[in-house]
């Protein structure tokens, strides 16, 4: 009996020892994670309930005033509209185009490599530099876009109302027009983002078992669409969830295009006043840290929500373990 107890006791102390070693080894990583990831978020969370400005020695608690502003002022209403317009437009189109381009490039084999490079170019180019090129192309009078459109004047294309208006009066001002500004930003976002999605989908496609297509053919899946539904799409499930999440987060984070086009104010009558730009304007330019923090918290909430949805989808729906 004594023997058993003794050995039992030593086992407990050994366990304790192991636990302590484990903690001491994970401690540095935990501390770093805490410092680098959590502290800034907590600080932003705390500041969002204050009226702190950088340089001030003190600040007052203002309660939920910052948040109330976010949901009452029309500037922020525009901010939400611009952000959601951008996300809802850019995400589905850039994911869809990315998938389509990946399927095409994949089916081309060797020749596809050229397209792969071309489609990926906008991803590699810095948006700031590309924004200048786009600004030039979209210039109302000397820009390539409107000049190209003018060619259509006098042809049958004038039956289309858009061209008729453009030829009689003038073509849109694009970046200067509050009806077009956000759509131009969306277009550039898609142009810039779909190559990235294509590369992710291409990686996903290489993991599709080739013999499954043969099996589908033997089972009577005759059309490309049926084979896509039966083999490709389910196999791309995890990739798609990831691509959609990443695209959403990137879309919420859109900033550099707007900063490049309209450094002062987020588009004609704030039609392209997206969240990131608002954080920048309030928090940095106007030194209203409280408001900036409040928008930041909201932004983090969206991103967190998206990530949770992704985790749930991946674990429940698209992993066939």
């Amino acid at each position, binding site marked *: 009996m004594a023997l058993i107890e003794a050995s039992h006791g030593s086992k407990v102390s050994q366990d304790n020892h192991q636990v302590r070693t484990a903690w001491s080894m994970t401690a540095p990583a935990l501390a770093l994670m805490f410092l680098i990831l959590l502290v800034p978020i907590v600080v932003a969370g705390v500041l969002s309930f204050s009226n702190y400005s950088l340089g001030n020695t003190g600040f007052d608690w203002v309660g939920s005033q910052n948040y109330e502003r976010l949901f009452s002022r029309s500037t922020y209403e525009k901010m939400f509209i611009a952000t959601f317009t951008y996300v809802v437009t850019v995400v589905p189109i850039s994911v869809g185009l990315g998938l389509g381009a990946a399927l095409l490039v994949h089916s081309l084999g060797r020749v596809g490599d050229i397209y792969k490079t071309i489609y990926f170019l906008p991803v590699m180019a810095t948006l700031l530099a590309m924004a200048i090129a786009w600004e030039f192309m979209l210039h109302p009078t000397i820009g390539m876009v409107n000049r190209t459109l003018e060619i259509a004047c006098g042809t049958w294309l004038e039956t289309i109302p858009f061209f008729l208006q453009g030829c009689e009066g003038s073509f849109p001002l694009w970046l200067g027009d509050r009806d077009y500004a956000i759509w131009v930003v969306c277009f550039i976002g898609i142009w810039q983002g779909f190559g990235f999605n294509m590369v992710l989908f291409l990686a996903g496609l290489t993991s599709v*078992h080739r*013999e*499954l297509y*043969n*099996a*589908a*053919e*033997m*089972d*009577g*899946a*005759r059309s490309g669409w*049926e084979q896509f539904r*039966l*083999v490709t799409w*389910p*196999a791309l*499930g995890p990739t798609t969830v990831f691509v959609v999440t990443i695209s959403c987060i990137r879309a919420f984070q859109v900033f550099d295009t707007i900063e490049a086009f309209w450094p002062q104010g987020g588009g004609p009558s704030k039609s392209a006043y997206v969240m990131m730009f608002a954080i920048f304007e309030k928090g940095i330019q106007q030194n209203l840290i409280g408001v900036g923090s409040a928008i930041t918290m909201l932004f983090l909430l969206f991103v967190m929500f998206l990530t949770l949805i992704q985790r749930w989808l991946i674990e429940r729906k*698209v992993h*066939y*373990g």
Partner: protein
Amino acid sequence: MSGLQIDAVEKDFGETSVLKGVTLNINDGEFVSLVGPSGCGKSTLLRIIAGLETATRGTVSIDGTDVTHVRAADRNLSMVFQSYALYPHLTVAENIAVPLRMRQMSTTQRLPVVGGLIPGTGPLKRDISQAVRHAAEMLEIGALLDRKPGQLSGGQRQRVALGRALVRNPAAFLLDEPLSNLDAKLRVQTRAEIAQLHRKLKATFIYVTHDQVEAMTMSDRIAVMMGGEILQCAAPEVIYEDPNDIRVAEFIGSPKINILPLEHTNDGVVLLGRVLDWPMPAGMPHLMQLGLRPEALRLVEGPSKLRGRVVHFENLGSEIFAQVVLYDGDIRLTLRATPADRQRLSLGKEVSLEFELRSGLIFDTAGKRLRMAEVKTRAAKEVA
């Protein structure tokens, strides 16, 4: 159910010719194995029969109808793939149902919600799930119907793949090394089950394997392939006892057949420097090869003309395989002995061997069988 005719099929992949004129007629309800070493073109031939690959030259017919230019989905054949190729996102029941859904239901009927509203979908779905259950019960996987392939063992996946193949009534079943991913014990068991399945369904089976034991145990006929050609297609016992080609003789049978050089001189037939009493007809070539199955060799007491030393032996309980290196010519022979001979076989021991002349198979130097040269009479019972 119907027969299959493969006529002078050739297949080139770019410059390399993989099939060099394969002709094979498979009867209705027959179980034919395509057997041969890895890379000899078995899978390619099967895929051409299936329609997944197009032949460069030659034709494939099913039941007399030329299907060379008919796509795989329209040939009404079922295939079991080496990797099983199950749809990972579908349950076992859904996997087995796919061939029926694809063939019997229209695109709109397959749609999740809308499909149910179309008249006739309900009864059709019931028929399909009935057929799925029937197939599952036949393969004893009824309890697994709600699982995903990822949650199954290799053997269970293999059954699901079989189930998907036999849920409908195809013209023939094509199986590409279906047992190669199973462990040895399961392989033996499944082998018997597939053979039983064939007897029960009375369907045409084309079975690809590199394992000659599988081919020998399951088939009505074996087609031995090598280098893109069928060397011989015959019943298993014919392939074993009466091969046309030395490559067939060497590939079929385990352990491998023993090959000894044979000389035909003016003095008579000479084996390893000794003249045999062999009634060789005229016109036979000078150099030949003698094939002796391990069971054709016998251990004898006292001196004989084939003498050597045991260098290795394997006792399998019911039989013993011993490798003997002959004193003449440094040739290694494999011999099958009964347990009664065990005392006489130990490593390094000197043994004397003999064989009956009429159990010897004669091939020319190119490997073609020389039946003319073989001893046919029962009387010629000379001992080497």
